[in-house]
């Protein structure tokens, strides 16, 4: 008869366990995915499902190799959340085999090599994303303007992603008309073009609201607020990320884009509410989370404004994961 020391069941109703938390995060992602698949393309749902399925398979394989208890180790669902985040972060047109490579790296290098959930210092989804970004740069910046894909037809896109059908679909007429990558990529291109001879940029109004990115980010914001309300995440990281990003944009930002368009574009909201708040790889104390969040916001701004990549949030989160042991070391006194 197992001997119980602290009798938790006698005092509290069963609390929410880790698997419920992960389900809540998945539920919070649904509005974002819905708007994303409506505005851009429903392919993202398939991407997410493929990523989730392959992530679970890889994790079962890794857990068997590691000799840990098979199914329960995967049951906590943390890898499925990471897989969906990766699927959302990569462009919808990414061929499936590259997505699988990303998921493999995410599961193996991002999490299992460190000994499973709770031991990894880096956010697995971002490790997968960064590895993809560096190994397939061309495909990874191949985004579509809203409404662009509807004309291309859903099935031909699936074939292109599987590498069957017209092999060079990547470059044939269906896609050669690629006008806008994420607004940010486009913003940089236009800013450079629109610089007149003495270097100050002319006013630039982007038919922004027409593009769906604003709505996608608002949907993710809705999901994020739901997580906050359900106390799955604390407010410190998202607030810190957004405030530090906005402050720096106001102070140093050169592009004339109105602030709200910059904040609600690319993956800043998705990153702030879903990716940076992964508790395993974020700082431990509330004070540490504020520092961590403001670091992510600042780095995202720097990489977006001066860096080479359009979307800096992935690298910002990885870089701040790198500094988490330093933040925890300096923050040893209980606040």
């Amino acid at each position, binding site marked *: 008869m197992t001997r119980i020391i602290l009798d938790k069941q006698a005092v509290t109703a069963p609390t929410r366990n880790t698997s419920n938390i992960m389900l809540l995060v998945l539920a919070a992602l649904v509005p974002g995915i819905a708007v994303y698949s409506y505005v851009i393309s429903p392919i993202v749902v398939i991407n997410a499902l493929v990523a989730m399925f392959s992530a679970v398979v890889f994790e079962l394989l890794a857990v068997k*190799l*590691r*000799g840990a208890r098979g199914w329960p180790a995967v049951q906590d669902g943390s890898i499925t959340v990471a897989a969906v985040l990766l699927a959302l972060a990569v462009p919808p047109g990414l061929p499936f085999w590259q997505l699988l490579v990303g998921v493999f790296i995410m599961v193996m*290098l*991002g999490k299992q*090599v*460190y*000994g*499973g959930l709770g*031991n*990894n*210092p*880096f956010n697995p989804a971002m*490790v997968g994303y*960064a*590895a993809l*970004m*560096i190994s397939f740069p061309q495909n990874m910046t191949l985004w579509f303007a809203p409404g662009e894909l509807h004309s291309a037809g859903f099935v031909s896109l699936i074939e292109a992603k599987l590498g069957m059908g017209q092999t060079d679909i990547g470059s044939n007429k269906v896609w050669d008309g690629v006008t806008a990558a994420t607004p940010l990529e486009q913003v940089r291109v236009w800013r450079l073009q629109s610089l007149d001879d003495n270097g100050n940029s002319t006013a630039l109004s982007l038919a922004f609201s027409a593009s769906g990115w604003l709505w996608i980010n608002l949907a993710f914001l809705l999901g994020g607020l739901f997580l906050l309300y359900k106390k799955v995440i604390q407010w410190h990281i998202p607030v810190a990320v957004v405030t530090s990003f906005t402050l720096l944009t106001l102070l140093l930002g050169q592009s004339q884009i109105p602030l709200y368009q910059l904040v609600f574009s690319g993956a800043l909201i998705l990153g702030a509410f879903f990716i940076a708040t992964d508790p395993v790889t974020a700082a431990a104390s509330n004070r540490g989370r504020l520092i961590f969040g403001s670091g992510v916001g600042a*780095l995202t701004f*720097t*990489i977006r404004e*001066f*860096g*080479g*990549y359009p979307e*800096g949030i*992935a*690298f*910002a989160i*990885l*870089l701040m*994961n*790198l*500094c988490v*042991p*330093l933040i*925890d*070391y300096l923050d040893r006194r209980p606040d």
Partner: protein
Amino acid sequence: MNEWALILLTTVLVNNFVLTQFLGLCPFMGVSRTLESALGMGMATSFVLTLASALSYIINQWLLVPFELGYLRTISFILIIALVVQFTEIIIRQRSPMLHRVLGLYLPLITTNCAVLGVALLSARQHDSLIEAVVFGFGAAAGFTLVLILFSLLRQRLAGANVPPAFKGNAIGLITAGIMSLAFMGFTGLA
């Protein structure tokens, strides 16, 4: 003034000597087991690098270039670095003998450290003023120390993770260093 800031930014972040140019990896892996040794090594390398970068610039501009002795650059730089390293070793042996013992082999190893020699050779060729060479040397050292400290704290935390036995020790260290350089790739193209 912002000229130097730019050099500093590029050497510390954009092409960080350890994580982007993969120079000076052996002390990076060898000394990063505890924070104290990482700090000690960081300080020692910074001192050596800044001094060596300055001296090698001087020797190069006033001795080698006027006499077209370019081919002597490597040997003379190694000499300078050896001199500075010996000087640092004496100071460390006096000030904190335990740190001297903990660093042990890695202190004289700075002389043959590819990052140190790399900085000396690069600063001699690229920069056209002594101040720039010194700032370049200091930037490289600061980048090295920053990454070394972060890596040692990360490894101390990983000591508690249940890493599979096959990966324990240096294996997980190398994988983590790999992911760190993956993260630093984000800075490419920065300015």
